[in-house]
């Protein structure tokens, strides 16, 4: 099934795109799995996700842990720790 993947701030700059629709393979079950899978898609992804421990994950516009299941995900976002306010 196709899922919308969105990137923000320096993750967006490093991947070179704000969003894309991807068909995820069955073995991608968590945000951490997806990061590992994305890193193999090209050097720009490898660069964006070089430090996966600092990347935050949102599923369907809600914060989740990277280890949380992606079941039911329509939109998955990756971004750095937030710096507003």
């Amino acid at each position: 099934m196709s899922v919308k993947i969105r990137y923000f701030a320096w993750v967006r700059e490093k991947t070179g795109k704000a969003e894309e629709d991807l068909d995820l393979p069955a073995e991608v079950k968590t945000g951490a799995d997806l990061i590992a899978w994305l890193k193999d898609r090209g050097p720009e992804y490898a660069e964006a996700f070089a430090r996966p421990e600092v990347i935050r994950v949102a599923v369907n516009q809600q914060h989740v842990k990277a280890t949380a299941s992606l079941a039911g995900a329509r939109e998955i976002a990756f971004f750095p720790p937030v710096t507003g306010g």
Partner: protein
Amino acid sequence: MSVRVQVEDFDIGAEVRALTAGHADIGAVVTFTGTVRGESGGKPLSRMTLEHYPGMTEREIARIEAEAHTRWPLQASLIIHRVGTLRPGDNIVLVVTASAHRHAAFAAAEFLMDYLKTRAPFWKKEEDAGGAGAWVDARESDDHATRRWQGATGKG
């Protein structure tokens, strides 16, 4: 309860008047305004760009606001956060809390700001005089500030 994410500046006096109009049950209004500092890491800042996650940002702030209303007896609240390009001295964020008494209004405003800084999807990119840009790093002190509310309960 009200949340706005906008490019435009805000008028603090007008916002407070609109929020409290018609309320006879408010005895305390606290406002917090965040503004752009003119330096970063000892170097002059020429401008800053704020990025957000349309949809999630508004929902996340609304969730934090609803949480504040469960912790303290608030009659009204308002959160405005600007996005886009800002310059030193510009307003970034406005939090207004209104309650019958000051303690709830003060505490709720601080709670809202602490959560906003660590949970609401905004990212700042700073630009120096030479045009070199750098994304702002999250501060651990902000995480500490948010954690002190966890497990704590509000009171009037």
